[in-house]
């Protein structure tokens, strides 16, 4: 097989992986601070995708323009979920949190089914079928835009946590819950903000993914699983780890499909997960538990 085929597939895998990474970043941020695993993560992303479909159908807005408003809407949804629901479960056993979020996920799937029906839906932008040709390399334009947006959103989130007072306070909550309470931080509000930020990441990722994939109400659990695989591979709670995990999984799926069988793509992604769990349980960029 010509070398350019490998190159084409690898580039496509990396670009898709960057958007996967943005999706997983939300899960990682929420777990890193709130210590709650969001089992409704994929379902929240499908909600964002459907919001994008409605906005596109109504106002013909480009997903790149819709990105910020949808991220803001999902921020609101996440904030309300954490402040109104999940905060009450913070001190409860993990299985209670698990059941709560699985129930929320099932409700979300069924509400989407009632509103939008089971058919796959997508949007057709002016560049939906465009591709860039650089020598022998042909790159899907929608994937390039989506990956660039993923990088920008990730950088913005990183800067927020690094250079703002609220970001610093959130990191303080993540590092030392009791210490944060002692110095007078409103931890529950900061948790709600964090869940909102994680949800905003998912909103942005969903809007971008709609450029690449169709959406159905039933797609949520598969995205939740994918996000788990990525964050566990990259390191649960690590922001760069989520992005790296996304790229690694995207690239692995693409190359395994090319070199072996497309049917076996997921098998190789899960193979990487097993290897990470065996030899580096904290994830590639995760911190070893004390």
């Amino acid at each position: 097989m010509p070398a350019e085929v490998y190159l084409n597939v690898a580039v496509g895998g990396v670009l898709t992986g960057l958007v996967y990474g943005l999706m997983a970043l939300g899960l990682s941020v929420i777990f890193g601070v709130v210590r709650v695993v969001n089992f409704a993560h994929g379902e929240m992303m499908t909600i964002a995708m459907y919001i994008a479909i409605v906005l596109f159908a109504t106002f013909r807005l480009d997903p790149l323009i819709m990105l910020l408003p949808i991220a803001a809407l999902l921020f609101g949804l996440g904030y309300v979920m954490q402040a109104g629901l999940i905060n009450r479960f913070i001190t409860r056993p993990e299985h209670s949190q698990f059941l709560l979020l699985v129930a929320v996920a099932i409700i979300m799937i069924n509400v989407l089914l009632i509103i939008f029906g089971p058919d796959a839906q997508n949007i057709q932008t002016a560049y939906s079928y465009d591709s860039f040709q650089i020598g022998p390399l042909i790159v899907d334009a929608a994937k390039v835009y989506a990956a660039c947006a993923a990088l920008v959103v990730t950088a913005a989130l990183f800067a927020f946590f690094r250079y703002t007072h609220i970001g610093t306070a959130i990191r303080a909550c993540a590092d030392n819950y009791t210490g944060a309470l002692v110095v007078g931080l409103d931890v529950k509000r900061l948790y709600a903000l964090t869940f909102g930020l994680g949800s905003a990441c998912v909103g942005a990722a969903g809007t971008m993914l709609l450029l690449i994939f169709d959406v159905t109400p039933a797609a949520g659990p598969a995205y939740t699983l994918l996000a788990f695989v990525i964050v566990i591979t990259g390191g649960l709670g690590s922001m760069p780890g989520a992005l790296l995990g996304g790229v690694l999984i995207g690239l692995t799926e693409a190359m395994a499909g090319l070199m072996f069988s497309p049917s076996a793509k997921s098998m190789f992604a899960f193979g990487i997960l097993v290897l990470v769990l065996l030899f580096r349980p904290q994830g590639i960029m995760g911190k070893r538990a004390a």
Partner: protein
Amino acid sequence: MSRKSQNSTRVSRRTFSAGLGAAGIVAGTAPFNIVRAQGTPLKVGVLLPRSGYQAGIGQDCQRGVDITAGILKDMGMPPLQLMNADTETNVEIARSRAEKLISEGAQLLVGAFDSGQSTAIAQVAEQKGIPYVINIAAAPPITEQGYKFVFRNFPTAGMILGGAFAAQKEIFAASSSVPKTAVFLHVNDTFGTAMKGGIGAVMPKFDMPYKIVETISYDPAARDLSVEISKAKATGADALIMVSRLNDAILLTRELVKQRWSPMAILSMGPGWYEDQYLKTLGKLSDGPLSFVPWYDPNKPLSKQLEAALAKAHAGVNLNTNHVYTFEALLVAADAYKRAGSTDPKALADAIRTTNITNNTSPGPGILFDAKGQNSSLKISGIQNRGGKLVTVAPKEAANAKAEWPLTPYDKRA
């Protein structure tokens, strides 16, 4: 002695009256029973993938269900009481829904579009002794199990392939250029795997002008099929041979456009490429693929009736395989009920076994089942997407257009 003998043979007035009364009761109630049975609708459980990744096709089959009642009434068939169930594109759910329908009183089952799901339903139907008429499912083993209650008015994978290769040769014979190489892309579900096995067995018998240089299987629920198209494109093959579903057919076409590859032909031997959703989603990019599928004979009177009913119920939707074979499965049920005059499952199954419907829509002599419960007289058509419509290009006797060949490159479409 002789007197006794005379008495024993003589019919007295009392005996005659009693006999007349008994005969009257028998004569009066027997036809009444039949009328009563046929006045009561036959409870038919219709299992379709109404959600999950086959939802689009399941709902298209439902359109065939929607237009059935009026046409059956016009044909003088007894009424059917339809009990709908969703298999959720899942084999295990299909099995449990079939069991539930039977426990709720379904007297006959119809469905379920997919071979895997139909296989599961067939096992339940046979176990419970309830007749099951398959609308669409091509995996050969379903009617090779010696089942007594399972019937299929749809060609097997081998029949589809044989008909497809014959129709392709007919099209190639009228063309100056033919593909020399092809890539075979197929879904890795029960249907796709059966078709893959069938191609290996059937293709050598037809001396096709092309050889398959690469076979690529993929998950029908896949979100991204870019790698599959990259791999296929790398072979430099002239044609794509497809066994797919609906969503993946749309994804594959998008990838062909994005990766700037227009093969000489797309030859599909399954669903997806001719579905209304495919045509509407892709617009001008949907033109060109040839599908070799169980279709309908546009010249049969019942086909025209079906087209009119569909146009009235679902304006703008083209009549297709999903509507036709779902309708015919319900026609088989109603016809059997009419002839059996009973809802007894065994009587219904016996009636289905002796079906001989010539006023139908599918190509071929009509609907009749062999000893295995398979309608083996069905014919395959070649159809092509053109301007959002479907035309029949093969076989010649059922064609209403000539094949446009080769495929217009995607980047040259106005």
